[in-house]
């Protein structure tokens, strides 16, 4: 990797000169000390163990976690604002007598001179306290002046990361090799491995901006939106069925496709927010803006009989409220259904005031209709064009039937058929049908007529059947048209009450739509509806939205957010390890007008991101989770990405974007097991088996089995889950998906490299890992192929069976023994730890 000068990086990244100046100009030493970012972490790490919230551990009855207590005048106040010399805290920190010194030397938590100086300066500046960091207004911290590792600092991100590493006595890692980088970057930005040609081109590109151009290419790829959509779908609890026992199918996929497009078009995050929460309330809302509000209605729908509709409706509104809270505010609200939050500044009243924003739709909660209005119908062009034809066919069939009945039921001029003598003895229901013109008869009536004459008059029967067939065809088309549940407010506002214990039938005080009292107010002029709420979320005064969004994106690239608890920025959540970096990124995000692609670029072009992810023994012990980022990210990919990687490497992947969800392979009938036989899994065939994982039909009560550690899609999920279980190994070794991918991968390589075993092995490894095998690996794999060939040669029938796994056809020109052996080898490569990891 060619190094990019720091200033040049700033230029490339388009960071405003004013910011760049800050890096060269006055450093943080000239700015007032920030309590939350600079002092609290010191006190927390070094003092709170004995002088913190835990009363049982507290020494000398001194607590430093509470402003009043810390400043309380005692024999000697711990902190005297403006006077460090009179402050016991400072006196003890610099005490020469080791018996006096704090923290006590045997606590093994010594302060650095810089930390002591910072505390002194903070006290002398007035010891300004502040509240919980995440609720404080977002201000852009100055960039630390790079003093160490300046050679490696490539971006403002690095300035923060490496300054911290220097304080911790750690050193950044070398840049990862190019093959590793292109694979890491491709997986991160488009969720797919690089092709051989792409790897080749990047590795041999000597130009200084090769990496930048790679980033640009990937950000411009249509697959970028598909990659980004997955995490958003988890957050939005998107699924293709309702959930609960009935679990009826729904058709929200046009909303899913909209998300993909929104990322691809780089819709700014503020618009992305406003459209999804309140697109319907925008002036002259477009269909697309209304479609976006499907976000709110991705919640589960309860179709259990005996449920009270209002109870359901309240559940849905709670879900919308809580999802908004987690996704934008990083706060977990559900406790407030029943009581004030114990830790966070959200009272039960605040909860129901937020609830009031979402409480205005005409949804009544009755039944389990997966297309409960308000909905928008989104026929495809083909569906739209077929509609007039089908209507015309119904009209024609009805006219013919009417004409036929004129002779079939002789009667007086202007009379209906039921008055014909021939109809006199017929049952009343039949007569009722005959009274109507054919066009107005319903399907049931047509069936009755059919039954009546199925033996006696084949000719009449055929006329009726033709009409019924035409109606069925139209109905089938209508059923196939996607209807997306969207938001709309009813004209008459629905009053909202605090619900005691969250019970729908225990309304107490009435509340009006409002944002939590302890967060900044709504922007002036913002309407008191969802649109106003959305505008408030993305207003510059909102302290949470940008921090929360940036943190989630960081998690996507580094595996763990700067705040480890992306769902909880409250007091119980983790304090960020790099608070200034988080704030800087958040401020940058807002100032860039919420440019998501730019934020991605900012992160992936940092030297911190590009480091090698090799773990030294010391580092493994010191920072096992890689929170300090003295090495690059390395973690098991999400299971959907592992599947997409296998399909892509195999050349099986069908890259068509969007559309109706598909049902690829799944063992047995897992749906029947859990639904007591009410739903049956019907596997699709052909290209549906090879679409990106994003398009897999997501049955909410039993998620697709090929995915592991995935979000349930039942409620909003923003935190990634990563476990390491033997069950995952069984999936990637034995699932048809992976065995077939291995077969196709082998075929691809065998066809491209007709004879040379070494070339073939190299190609398989490169298609999956981007890099070439080492000599040792190549030797191992070569021996493996010889053994496998020998084994399959001894049992050709087994080879045939093994090659028959999966529905795609294999090239019969390939020798089955050889093909089987390479399939097994490819399966091993797809199961390498490195293949399962983003490295």
């Amino acid at each position, binding site marked *: 990797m060619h190094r990019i000068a720091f200033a040049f990086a700033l230029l490339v990244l388009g960071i405003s000169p004013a910011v760049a100046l800050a890096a060269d100009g006055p450093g943080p030493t000239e700015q007032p000390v920030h309590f939350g970012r600079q002092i609290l972490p010191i006190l927390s790490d070094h003092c709170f163990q004995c002088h913190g919230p835990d009363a049982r551990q507290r020494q000398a009855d001194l607590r430093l976690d509470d402003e009043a207590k810390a400043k309380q005048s005692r024999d000697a106040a711990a902190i005297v604002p403006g006077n460090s010399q009179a402050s016991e805290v400072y006196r003890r920190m610099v005490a020469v007598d080791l018996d006096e010194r704090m923290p006590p030397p045997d606590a093994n938590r010594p302060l650095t001179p810089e930390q002591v100086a910072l505390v002194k300066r903070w006290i002398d500046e007035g010891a300004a306290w502040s509240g919980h960091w995440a609720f404080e207004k977002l201000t852009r911290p100055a960039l630390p002046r790079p003093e160490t590792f300046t050679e490696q600092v490539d971006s403002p991100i690095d300035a923060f990361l490496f300054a911290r590493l220097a304080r911790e006595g750690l050193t950044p890692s070398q840049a990862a090799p190019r093959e590793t980088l292109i694979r890491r970057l491709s997986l991160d930005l488009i969720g797919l491995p690089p092709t051989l040609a792409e790897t080749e081109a990047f590795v041999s590109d000597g130009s200084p901006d090769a990496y930048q151009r790679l980033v640009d290419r990937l950000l411009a790829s249509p697959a970028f939106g598909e990659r980004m959509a997955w995490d958003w779908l988890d957050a939005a609890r998107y699924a293709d069925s309702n959930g609960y026992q009935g679990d009826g199918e729904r058709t929200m996929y046009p909303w899913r496709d909209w998300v993909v497009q929104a990322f691809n078009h780089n819709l700014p995050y503020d618009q992305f927010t406003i459209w999804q929460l309140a697109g319907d309330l925008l002036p002259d809302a477009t269909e697309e803006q209304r479609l976006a509000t499907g976000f709110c209605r991705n919640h589960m729908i309860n179709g259990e009989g005996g449920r009270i509709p209002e109870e359901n409706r309240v559940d849905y509104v709670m879900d919308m409220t809580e999802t908004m809270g987690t996704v934008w505010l990083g706060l977990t609200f559900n406790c407030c259904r029943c009581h004030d939050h114990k830790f966070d500044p959200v009272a039960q009243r605040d909860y129901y005031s937020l609830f009031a924003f979402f409480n205005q739709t005409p949804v009544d909660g009755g039944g389990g209709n997966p297309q409960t209005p308000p909905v928008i119908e989104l026929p495809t062009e083909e569906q739209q064009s077929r509609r007039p034809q089908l209507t015309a066919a119904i009209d024609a069939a009805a006219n013919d039937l009417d004409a036929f009945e004129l002779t079939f039921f002789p009667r007086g001029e202007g009379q209906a058929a039921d008055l014909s003598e021939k109809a006199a003895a017929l049952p009343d229901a039949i007569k009722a049908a005959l009274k109507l013109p054919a066009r107005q008869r319903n399907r049931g009536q047509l069936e009755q007529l059919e039954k009546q004459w199925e033996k006696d008059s084949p000719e009449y029967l055929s006329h009726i059947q033709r009409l019924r067939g035409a109606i069925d065809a139209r109905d089938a088309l209508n059923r196939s048209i996607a209807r997306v549940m969207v938001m709309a407010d009813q004209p008459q506002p629905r009053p909202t009450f605090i619900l005691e214990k969250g019970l729908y039938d225990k309304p107490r005080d009435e509340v009006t739509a409002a944002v939590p009292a302890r967060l900044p107010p709504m922007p002036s002029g913002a309407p008191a509806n969802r649109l106003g709420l959305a505008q408030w979320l993305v207003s510059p005064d909102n302290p949470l939205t940008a921090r929360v969004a940036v943190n989630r994106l960081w998690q996507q690239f580094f595996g763990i957010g700067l705040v480890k608890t992306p769902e909880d920025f409250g007091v119980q959540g983790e304090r960020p390890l790099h608070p200034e970096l988080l704030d800087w990124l958040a401020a940058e995000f807002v100032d860039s007008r919420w440019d998501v692609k730019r934020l991605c670029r900012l992160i992936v072009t940092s030297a911190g991101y590009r480091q090698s992810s090799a773990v030294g023994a010391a580092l493994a012990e010191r920072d096992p989770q890689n929170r300090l980022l003295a090495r690059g990210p390395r*973690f098991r990919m999400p299971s959907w990405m592992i599947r997409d990687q296998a399909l892509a490497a195999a050349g099986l992947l069908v890259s068509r974007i969007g559309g109706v969800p598909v049902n690829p392979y799944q063992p047995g009938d897992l749906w029947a097991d859990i639904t007591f036989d009410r739903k049956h899994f019907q596997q699709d065939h052909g290209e549906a088996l090879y679409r990106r994982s994003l398009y897999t039909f997501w049955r909410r009560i039993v998620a697709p089995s090929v995915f592991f550690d995935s979000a349930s899609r039942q409620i909003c999920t923003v935190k990634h889950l990563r476990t390491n279980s033997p069950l995952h190994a*069984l999936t990637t070794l*034995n699932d048809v998906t992976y065995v077939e991918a291995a077969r196709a991968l082998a075929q691809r390589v065998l066809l491209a490299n007709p004879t040379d075993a070494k070339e073939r092995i190299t190609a398989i490894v490169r298609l999956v890992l981007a890099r070439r095998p080492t000599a040792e690996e190549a030797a*191992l794999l070569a021996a493996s192929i010889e053994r496998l060939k020998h084994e399959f040669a001894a049992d050709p029938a087994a*080879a*045939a069976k093994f090659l028959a796994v999966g529905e795609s056809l294999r090239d019969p020109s390939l020798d089955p023994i050889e093909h089987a052996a390479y399939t097994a080898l490819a399966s*091993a490569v797809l199961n390498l*730890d490195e293949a399962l990891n983003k490295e």
Partner: protein
Amino acid sequence: MSPLVEHQLAINRREFFSHGASAIGTAALASLLTQDGFAAGSPVGGLTGLPHFAPKAKRVIYLFQNGGPTHVELFDFKPKLKEMHGQPVPDAYFAGKRFSTMTGNPQGKVMLAPVEPFSQHGTSGAWVSSFLPHTAAIADELCFVKSMHSDAVNHAPAISFFLSGAQLPGRPTMGAWLTYGLGSETQDLPGFVVMTSVSKGTTCGQIFYDFYWSSGFLPSRFQGVKFRGNGEPVLYLTDPDGFSRTMRRGLLDDLTKLNELKLREFGDPEIATRIAQYEMAYRMQTSVPELTDFSQEPQHVLDLYGPDVKQQGTYAYNCLMARRLIERGVRFVQLMHAGWDQHGSITTELYNQCRDTDQPSAALVLDLKQRGLLDDTLVIWGGEFGRTPFLQGNINDRPKWGRDHHPYAFTMWMAGGGVKPGISYGASDDLAMNVAEQPVHVHDFQATVLHLLGIDHQRLTYRFQGRDFRLTDVHGNVVREILA
């Protein structure tokens, strides 16, 4: 055992001797495997120096009752509650106490007498209500701890506290600590297995969070492996058509060697875990079908566990599975059953809850005993807290009577594994409200469990981010009075 299964087991062992030993050789893997092969019963992994002293129990079955079983209805008989039925809670009992915010301040709440009668059972004379006839019948096998108390008032934090010693997720759970410290006695199954069930028809919406069986900061191979409650307990267990076990073994050896190269180069400890998990997957392909095949269980044993025993996903099925798992060397079986959260269903759903769990729990103890396994198997029955002796709801609306969360006094029982049978230890006050005698805190309970397994809870530690962590944090005293 079917001849086929037997044959496959034999292949596993043989292949392991021939390939496994040479394949798995790096320092990082050494701790996973012992030097002396895989003879049945010999521990695999574990720390040197452990156990610290001779253990009474070799394995644990934890019957975790999620939701907070009501000690007031089930075990903690207080005549005074009946006298005070409908009367306000006396101030002195709750002064300075924090309750769930559903209750808030208990002032003005009224006492609720247990809804079913109690009687004494066995020669030990233990009090058990008629809700649990099967448990009552084995009272002489059980050690009731009636003075449990916890720090947490809400489910997830309280469950996490019991299982990991901390209310917030992120610490290793008991099963992870034990398999880390003691290793496993089987190569064929995970050392720590989790199964979950929910009572039929419960309105309780509790979720089984995976941090209830997390390995926290311990290497992730120590996390519990959860078996599915429907369909195959483990999916994708069968090799692809045409791919023989011999081929699988050979390919897995290649995979292991390649991963070892990576481990040597990259040092990521997750790679070592990956290697171990692939090996485990291989062995589970043989061991799991055999494990879940109940066809050789005698009818009288099946009858013991009750009518649901053959229905996968039920508590009864899981109890029998628990026995089969520990018979096969699994160190820690964590069986979690949700639905004990009777905020408004003491007179309704509690009956179903007891019906579903009472007989299988007792059956498990009896079954272990008749097989001679109870002596060195510790069975634990208990939830994350108890329930308030006062009413949640309206005294005039009996069908909706409920009790709120109550961490200040509640009951658990243990059996086997070095615990004194037929005793009741500790006591709550005359209203079952607070601990009155011999309090047992959650950390004390944890210290005691570790002690029974031969571990000094203060010495089983793991250094993480500069600090030595342990299950009991900086607390915990072994409750010596209940040791046999």
